[in-house]
């Protein structure tokens, strides 16, 4: 796990995820980033913590994906006036994460070129830092929205279109500033953070055993992925081993979540290309699937079903048959619909070449997850770092190099059928036994991580325990942090009316990265 070429005194973390954590110096921080970048690794998450209450300093953490697993680096910053080395030159996605760290903790990267706030829109003062232990939420109350300096594009006939935060449809809020000539988009700049709910600070109100409920509400469409990643982190810091049946049931729910989201997206993508038939059909299949989830797991979206120590519900024998029958039915219908999609020239005309992200650009800027695989980035934690039961299921990665809307549609279809296969295999191989184990009291300072391939991409969670079983610091990272900047690139040169279609083909989370 150690970063090749850099000797670190790292510690292997307990738990499912192959991960180490190491304290580094500023020089090692920069050198590690360079070595990871050169070796083709990626920055998974960057966050900070005020650890003064524990008799320590501030920390900035970086989690890297290396060929051996996760490498978490912990850089101590003794005083908030000290800067830490900027990573955005090596990993472009670090830009917004570092701005979030500054907004929440007041730690400033040395040499970073973008001083604008990210999560702070004006609800707290630029000199207040919500994640510091001495932050007083009562000291300042405001719903002020400060002006945000967007990058201006100048030239003959260039004008701006401002969209949001409230969008036309029933979707999450965010602001898009388009600079256009006629119909053609020259530049898009995103302004997010509107759904910032203070989740990182809120984690401190929960115990390690309870925090899964909050984690499962970072992004509601990925509640299983988040809750599983959180559970992994909790089990890692508690050194708890989960019974086999619980692991298989977690995978069953994760694949069920992937199926539900892909069904929804395929319908919405057809609809955004004016093919309402697709929405009617796929939303019907999605509804059938959600009703089945409700019957089997007791919740349509499976919230609060993955818990630290195992799962909250078992699957009865008759439910297994119902799931298998429903999966077969959806597979049959979705194959009909795929044929209809493939043969529909009007639909393909909208999909093909729209919103293209080339594999080179995807690699350079670190596109991950479903959108990454549709741009030739063959990354899937279920294959690259499989945990049980994925170790036995031989998941086939769905990868396509075209990087356009058509490729993202195609990857969704491929993954839908693969997940339906996995559901049947999981049901067939489901081991008997317990579904949950009791949790011990966490040791203050114990640290753990979780890393799960959700339907959108990799969800990462880090948890540090405090006194009395409470959470001292927890951070949940959404893959949309990495992917949002690529939407800005995907739209360039396309026309404004194609933006909803292109945006939907990524279908990134607002709430997840707004945290």
């Amino acid at each position, binding site marked *: 796990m150690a970063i090749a070429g850099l000797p670190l005194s790292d510690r292997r973390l307990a738990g499912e995820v192959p991960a180490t954590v190491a304290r580094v110096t500023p020089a090692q921080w920069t050198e590690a980033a360079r070595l990871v970048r050169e070796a083709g690794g990626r920055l998974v998450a960057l966050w900070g913590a005020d650890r003064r209450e524990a008799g320590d300093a501030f920390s900035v953490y970086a989690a890297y994906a290396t060929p051996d697993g996760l490498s978490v680096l912990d850089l101590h910053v003794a005083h908030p006036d000290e800067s830490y080395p900027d990573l955005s030159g090596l990993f472009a996605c670090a830009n917004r994460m570092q701005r979030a760290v500054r907004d929440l903790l007041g730690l400033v990267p040395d040499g970073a070129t973008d001083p604008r706030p990210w999560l702070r829109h004006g609800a707290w003062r630029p000199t207040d830092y919500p994640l510091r232990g001495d932050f007083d939420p009562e000291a300042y109350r405001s719903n002020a929205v400060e002006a945000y300096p967007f990058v201006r594009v100048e030239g003959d006939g260039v004008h701006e279109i401002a969209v949001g935060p409230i969008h036309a449809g029933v979707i*999450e809020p965010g602001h898009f500033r388009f600079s256009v000539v006629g119909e053609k988009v020259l530049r898009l700049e995103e302004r997010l953070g509107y759904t*910032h709910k203070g989740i990182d600070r809120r984690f401190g109100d929960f115990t390690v055993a309870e925090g899964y409920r909050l984690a499962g509400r970072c992004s509601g469409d990925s509640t299983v992925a988040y809750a599983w990643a959180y559970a992994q982190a909790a089990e890692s810091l508690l050194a708890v081993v989960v019974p086999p049946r619980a692991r298989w049931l977690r995978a069953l729910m994760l694949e069920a979540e992937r199926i539900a989201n892909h069904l929804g997206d395929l319908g919405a993508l057809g609809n955004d290309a004016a093919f309402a038939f697709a929405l009617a059909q796929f939303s019907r299949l999605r509804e059938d699937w959600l009703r089945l989830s409700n019957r089997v797991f007791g919740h349509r979206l499976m919230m609060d079903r993955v818990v630290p120590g195992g799962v909250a519900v078992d699957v009865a024998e008759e439910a297994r048959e119902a799931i298998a029958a429903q999966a077969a039915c959806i597979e049959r219908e979705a194959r009909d619909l795929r044929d209809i999609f493939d043969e529909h020239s009007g639909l393909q005309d909208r999909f093909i070449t729209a919103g293209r992200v080339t594999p080179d650009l995807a690699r350079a800027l670190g596109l991950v997850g479903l959108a990454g695989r549709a741009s030739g980035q063959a990354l899937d934690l279920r294959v690259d770092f499989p945990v049980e039961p994925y170790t036995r299921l031989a998941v086939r990665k769905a990868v396509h190099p075209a990087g356009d809307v058509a490729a993202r549609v195609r990857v969704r279809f491929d993954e839908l059928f693969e997940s339906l296969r996995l559901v049947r295999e999981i049901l067939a191989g489901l081991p008997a036994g317990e579904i949950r184990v009791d949790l011990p009291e966490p040791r203050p300072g114990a640290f753990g991580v979780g890393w799960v391939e959700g339907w959108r991409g990799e969800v990462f969670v880090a948890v540090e325990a405090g006194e009395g079983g409470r959470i001292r610091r927890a951070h949940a990272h959404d893959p949309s942090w990495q992917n949002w900047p690529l939407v800005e690139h995907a739209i360039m040169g396309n026309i404004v009316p194609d933006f909803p279609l292109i945006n939907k083909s990524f279908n990134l989370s607002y709430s997840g990265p707004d945290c």
Partner: protein
Amino acid sequence: MIPILLKILRTGIVTEPAPQPREDWRVRGAQIGDEILRLLGRALVIREVDAGSCNGCELEVNALSNPYYNIEGLGIKLAASPRHADMLLVTGPVSKNMEEALRIAYEAMPHPKLVVALGDCARDGGIFGASYATCGGVSKVLPVDVAVPGCPPPPLAILEGILAAVAKRAP
């Protein structure tokens, strides 16, 4: 074209009957009654605003448009502009960063303005509570007619709540 038509024929009509309004979720009642039905007739235009939800409620609001619930068939339309809306359907604990946008949307609506707070967060902040970043529920910002519980409320509960806000109030 033929496969599409065949698929439509084989699928048939799957739309299910609509539920009754849930009177017990009503928060503000006195001024809503015959007047609204008289003003709105049978049609209702809704502007949905995500005021910091996790997106779970949005998934279930969108489900209302699927063929099983078919809300457009009931005369309910989700509109792009609050200027066309009879009702504001609000989700999330109202993040501070969305508070002003939510107020502007409300101000833009024509009278009478119905407000439905959808889900546990919109009711009272839910799991996010009231914090430096959240207002702790829609009623902290706007007058709320009906608050629908659930995390997220399933589609039928959403429909029951919407109907409760519109339907004639029993004296």
